[in-house]
């Protein structure tokens, strides 16, 4: 979120309305409001593990933006790219990147007609 977006956000919590992750866990820390709090505060205070927990627990569906009365865009994709640049990534993500580099697909070595050994959820 850039500074302008940060200033617009009042932490009203309306972003939780249709957030699929929040709806499932009913815990503030899994919802979009924590992402906004984290972006408003100094992110340098948070550990890599904490940053990963905040920004990876998101489907990037933008339901938060749709419900925001102040039209704030949390821009989670951008935050994730920044994290990946710093080497903060899920284990599944890391594995898939290795597979793509090595075999040209995210599922690893797969023969024609063969079922995938493992499905990933990033």
């Amino acid at each position, binding site marked *: 979120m850039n500074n302008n977006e940060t200033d617009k956000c009042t932490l009203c*919590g*309306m972003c939780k*309305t249709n957030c699929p992750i929040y709806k499932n866990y009913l815990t503030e*820390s899994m*919802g979009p409001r*924590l992402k906004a709090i984290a972006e408003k505060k100094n992110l340098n205070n948070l550990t890599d593990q904490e940053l990963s927990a905040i920004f990876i627990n998101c489907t990037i569906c933008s339901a938060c933006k749709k*419900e925001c009365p102040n039209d704030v865009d949390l821009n989670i994709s951008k935050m994730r790219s920044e994290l990946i640049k710093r080497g903060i990534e899920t284990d599944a993500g890391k594995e898939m990147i290795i597979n793509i580099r090595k075999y040209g697909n995210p599922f690893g070595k797969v023969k024609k007609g063969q079922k995938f050994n493992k499905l990933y959820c990033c």
Partner: protein
Amino acid sequence: MFNIKEKMERIVGKTNVSDSRLDKLSYSTDASSKSGHPLLIIWPTDREEIKNIIKTALNNKYDLVPRGAGTGLCGGCIPDESIVIDLSRMNHILKINPKKRTVIVEPGVTVNELNNALKKYNLIFPIKPASHKIATIGGMIATNAAGMHAIKYGKTKNWIEEIEIITGEDKTYNTMNIKSFCGSEGIFGIITQATLELTDLPKEHSYFHFKLNTPKELIDKVNEYRYNKNILSIEYIDRITSRLMKQDNRYHLIIEVSDDTGDIREEEEITKIETLREGIGASLGKEKFIIFEDPWIPPKYQEYFLEWLDKMRIPSFGHIGYGIFHPRFRKNHAEKIKKMFILVKKVGGTVSGEHGIGLSKKEYLSEKEKTKIRKLKKRYDPKNIFNRNKIIDMQPRGI
């Protein structure tokens, strides 16, 4: 010996207690600009767990802060080295009685969830605060929420038959004493269940939309409609807000009626007017008017109040039919806010029409109001473990 976290884990299970940094950060704030420090966060799932949590907190001298959706605008659920009780997971609709037109709910049920479940019975719980999509019934009872249909339906207290509350004396009350508990902002105990009254789902609705030049014209028009029986809401947008919304330099009056007598009846036109109303927050937010207050002004002084806001360049909108105004301020407008509240008191208004007192409006409470609250606090929460320093200042644990 177990520490407090372990003791609470034994009551609700390990996964329903947290003291992680991220959870503490999440529960340190609400929709007000206030923040504090939670010690633990607990997610209870039934009344028995709440009973045991309260008992443990009493025995070990810890403060408890009950919390719903965390959409309060006055800091009503800000912790102060306290244990936060998030009631979102107590979200069951227990019994709908279409004949008696009542429903029994747990405190974490949201108004939207409830009204969706009531649709098939053609019934509705009619209190509709701006945050109705996530606002919980427990939170609405605690703040005595009103909302945009207040002119027809009044406030939450008008629609409660019975409250079940566990107080700071470790007693469970099933009470019709709605007056004491509705609007008590969690300072007496935790609401574990409520029986709500329901009404018929309005079959039709339509709108009037007037554009007016002066506060006098606006108030004259409000008075023309204020006492009509079919009125659902009377909302205004002042001319500063109208300009910021790229409309015009006029006051807008939007009147919703519960039949088809309004000028705006077609679905497309209704969507347009509702979009205009819902766009207020975004337009003001873009201009950094992010703090909003909720004074109630008596009808006699509403025109004067509007003129004063215009003179002070304070954008506003609100439920003018019910007398609740929503002036919006920038972060550095503390002086303007203070001046406004002095004026509100002077004209016989109240500083909070619907958001509550919480932390931010304590200084405007009269001695008479404070004494009344202290008396009730002494009765229901004598050890002062609930939501300390909200509404009135209290010494830690014990009055």
